[in-house]
């Protein structure tokens, strides 16, 4: 498989073509915008957090295949996870796309298991400049979750 095909695995292409949870949540407890200064791409992420668990999440926005598929896959995988699980997942994801994945065999396996389908983004590490694309929605998500945590309704914030 060429580096290019490795980067754009069919799972990614599929999520790019048909992004999941591609809408605004009717009610949400957190919202944030993420912007890639390189290309001007913008994503909006909404989350519903209840008792420390992400019960719903969605996104809307314009972006490249990597950023869109990453946002889409993120929404499918974090639903039902606790906020701290989401944080841990993002850490692992970030390590993988920046090529700083664990090297010990057991840790590797553990990371693969935890990441699940997100492993499709492993090819990003060969294109470091695209790391920002792959993590754009994640950064917005973490911001949305933080604002959600303070208990104020999302509308009361800018």
């Amino acid at each position: 498989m060429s580096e290019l095909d490795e980067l754009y695995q069919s799972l990614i292409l599929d999520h790019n073509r048909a992004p999941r949870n591609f809408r605004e949540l009717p009610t949400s407890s957190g919202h944030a915008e993420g912007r890639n200064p390189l290309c001007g791409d913008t994503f909006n992420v909404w989350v519903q957090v209840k008792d420390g668990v992400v019960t719903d999440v969605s996104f809307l926005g314009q972006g490249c295949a990597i950023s869109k598929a990453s946002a889409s896959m993120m929404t499918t995988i974090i639903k039902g996870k606790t906020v701290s699980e989401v944080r841990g997942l993002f850490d692992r994801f970030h390590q993988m796309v920046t090529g700083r994945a664990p090297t010990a065999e057991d840790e590797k396996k553990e990371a693969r298991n935890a990441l699940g389908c997100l492993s499709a983004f492993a090819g990003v590490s060969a294109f470091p400049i695209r790391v920002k694309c792959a993590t754009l929605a994640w950064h917005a998500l973490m911001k949305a979750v933080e604002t959600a945590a303070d208990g104020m309704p999302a509308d009361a914030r800018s």
Partner: protein
Amino acid sequence: MSSPSVVDPRPGAAPDQTWDPASIRGDFPMLERTIRGRPIAYLDNAATALKPRSVIDEVVRYYQDVTANVARGVHTASQEATERFETVRHQVGMFLGSRPADEVVFTSGTTGAINLVAQSYGRAVLRPGDEVLVTEMEHHSNLVPWQLVAEQTGARVRAIPITGSGEVDLGWLERNRSDRTKIVAVCHVSNVLGTVVPVARVAALAHEMGAVCVVDGAQGVPHLRVDVGALGCDFYAFSAHKLFGPTGLGVLWGRQPLFERMPPWQGGGGMIARVEIEKSSFAPPPARFEAGTPPIAEVFGLGAVLDYLAALDRRAFEHEDRVVRYAEELLRAIPGVILHGAAPGRVGLVTFSVEGVHPHDVGTALDAGGVAVRAGHHCAQPLMARLGVTATVRASFAPYNTRREAEALAEGVEQAKRVFGQ
């Protein structure tokens, strides 16, 4: 040190007579590198151009043999460095059409040069309600400095619209200029559309209103012969690094009587006449505008650039034009490729979108094939808005680029389409 091949065109030779870029490719060491195992096809020249060996050597010469500060020491190395430095200033004057050297100010880049004009000239003349006109296709470096000074002075920035083909709407300018128009700032060549702005017309229209005309020549000097006298503009800015020269250096050319009346922008060593704690008086231009130790090695390098260009066969630029046209043709033939900009006589680049594929993904697909292009907003967000996109792909050319590289570009685009199943 290799030098450019100089072939005198035989008398009566057809103007489109073949000129082989192979004759100069050996001058550019960067062309030897590979990208992901493939030879590089460097089509990002508008971002920064590659440097000939002679330019690199001249930078090295400063650091090896002539290291000294300029205009400050009585010792031999300082004297040699100063002489070379001032000789290059003179060369730059010649390059811009035989202008006196004291009309040439060295800056940190095009951006630094335009900020200088905005903060020194602009801040001194702009009054509340005055207008600075730019075009809708300006690079942020020829827009944001005017916004900043407009905010400081109460002036207003307005954009001359561009037409569907990417030309400046001169009719709009004629209708909308007024005695509130104090500065008209336009690019010589658009870094996105390749449009050549009719600077002489714009300058004439500006002058009729008593306004000055500032030209962002960052993309002008690499493709056009520039004669500021013929252009009729008042200021002309460019960057060495886009002209096959070093980073960290730009040029601001300005008319001497204007320079003479302008206050300094930055304060520091070298730009003063007499300094006391409470007040200072300033040196005449160009020194007045060159505070601090200037980019000396970089100026050495620019000197070598000008020598290189002077010796370069002018057919090299006809060749470049042909490669650009060829790339355009190849891309036009690919279904789903949309070309931006159609101004007659445009130079240096092709900007395009691929339906259904984000420019970054096109850029990455090209990179995987060794083709370096720029994908993004090209520091021209208002133009992106006008084109109804957030980003585009731009392939930009130089004389060393080949037809084969244009083909690699088209193949990469096909490849991107294949990956995305379009």
